[in-house]
């Protein structure tokens, strides 16, 4: 490839569009995981704790029904009020959160429950205590747990999909992305700081990273884009849930009916680039 094949630096229009996408995904009135779980699933009952000494409120786990189906649920949870934002740590989990997710995968495997995950996190929490308790190890083990899960598994990116913290509950048999949600290797701010040495270049970084839902679909990282109400999910939670619920059920059915096998899930992530001959 030569320099002539390169796209030039993202045009201002691209940067503005990419940034608008990020802003909608982070809108303070956007429905968070529990808002959608309460509207899309039936009989949701939350469980607590990683059974190793912690219960991270940034990661929610529980049991529910969807139509006639039993489910295990894992979700990143952001807070709405000042108090809740602190308690939920803005949706950024500590190692206890990822171990709580692992517990849910273990439980689902033992009880033969399909898993649905809801992803909405800026990323894993970047703090001293998280590092002291093995943040990287916790995420790595959660990746491993997902790829070994012996039951059908569906992931839905409902807002921010930030980095390794998002990946910890994303490696499903099928991935759905809400229209204004995104998945990125790093937050646009962090990417800008690394690439341009200037977090103020976040708009350019967002465009250059091509983090929007449509790209994830084009590349096969996501299988379906879930439409949002005109203007974004924050304008109408009921309608957002009404658009999501039937698609959740249809996807779960599709995963199960095509002959479910965790080896197929591992193959999906082994070959995801689509660049190399197997």
């Amino acid at each position, binding site marked *: 490839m030569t320099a002539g094949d*390169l796209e030039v630096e993202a045009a201002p229009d691209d940067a503005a569009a990419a940034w608008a996408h990020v802003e909608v995904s982070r809108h303070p009135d956007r429905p968070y995981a529990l808002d959608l779980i309460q509207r899309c699933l039936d009989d949701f009952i939350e469980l607590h704790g990683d059974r190793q000494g912690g219960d991270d409120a940034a990661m929610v786990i529980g049991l529910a029904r969807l139509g006639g189906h039993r489910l295990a649920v894992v979700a990143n949870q952001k807070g709405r009020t000042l108090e809740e934002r602190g308690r939920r740590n803005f949706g950024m989990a500590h190692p206890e959160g990822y171990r709580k997710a692992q517990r849910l995968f273990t439980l689902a495997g033992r009880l033969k429950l399909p898993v649905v995950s809801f992803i909405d996190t800026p990323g894993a929490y970047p703090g001293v205590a998280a590092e002291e308790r093995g943040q*990287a190890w916790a995420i790595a083990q959660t990746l491993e747990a997902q790829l070994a899960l012996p039951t059908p598994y569906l992931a839905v990116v409902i807002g921010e999909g930030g980095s*390794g913290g998002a*990946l910890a509950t994303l490696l499903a048999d099928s991935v759905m992305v809400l229209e204004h949600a995104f998945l990125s290797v790093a937050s646009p701010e962090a990417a800008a700081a690394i690439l341009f040495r200037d977090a103020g270049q976040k708009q350019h970084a967002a465009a*250059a*990273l091509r983090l929007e839902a449509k790209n994830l679909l084009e590349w096969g*990282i996501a299988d379906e884009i879930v439409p949002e109400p005109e203007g974004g999910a924050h304008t109408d939670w009921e309608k957002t849930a009404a658009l999501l619920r039937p698609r959740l059920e249809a996807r779960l059915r599709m995963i199960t009916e095509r002959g479910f096998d965790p080896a197929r899930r*591992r193959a999906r992530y082994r070959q995801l680039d689509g660049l190399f001959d197997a």
Partner: protein
Amino acid sequence: MSVSTAYTGVQANKEGSAFTCAACKATYPAAQVAGTLYVCPGCSHHARVGAHERIRQLADKGSFQEWDANLTGTDRLGFFDTRAYVDRLDEARARQQLPDALLTGSGTIHGFAAGLAAFDFGFLGGSLSTAVGERLARAIEHSAEAQLPFVCVTSSGGARMQEGVFSLMQMAKSVSALHELAEAHLPFISILVDPTMGGSIASFAALGDVILAEPKAMIGFTGARVITQATYEQLPAGFQTSEFHHARGLIDRVVDRRDLKAVLAQLLAVLAGPAGEIDQALA
């Protein structure tokens, strides 16, 4: 190969006639520090070494057979930050004499055959590109196929921003490949050297059956500078060093580079040596 790519961080001595320790600033003849495996003879600071040098230190002479020598990736996103990504790649390939930031192959370590992988921090910070992820996954699979234990020396800043979400997905790819090794009941020995950060330690590198680290290597999910900026927290003494993680049960042993080959051989003697009556029955 010249000394200039054998170790990094010593800009003043690229000609290779002398070695100045980045920690204590003492200068030694290059030949002397080559003999101490680029560990400072005075203060024992471990200089970063490139992938070719790392393999030379660990594999028995003449035993290394490279895998997938021609496997490279592409600029999927057409990425341009302050420079074109393709130009950065070309420059790194020429300078480091590698197709990307990971060198893989088979070799023997004091006679024990193993699959080997070594990251090259001088190649765009040893970051995880699609090519690095593919080379790593194939090395793991080649090892499983050949019934070899797998040894990986990681020195990586984490994700390669210029490959966006494809870089992120290499974490999933590597863990998926490791499942094959585990199913074949073959050991994975993960060696963490300075630095091992972000997506690398949060995926394959943390999943070693045995995890070793060189002294005072920086290892962690989020770098210290970012943590300070994001949280204003005070960092404890020795934060994110090998010793820090070892004390918290996250790393099995901190091993001086000069002892690394012998420790690996000892591990392989147990894990890959002949089985006895009792453990044979478990096979």
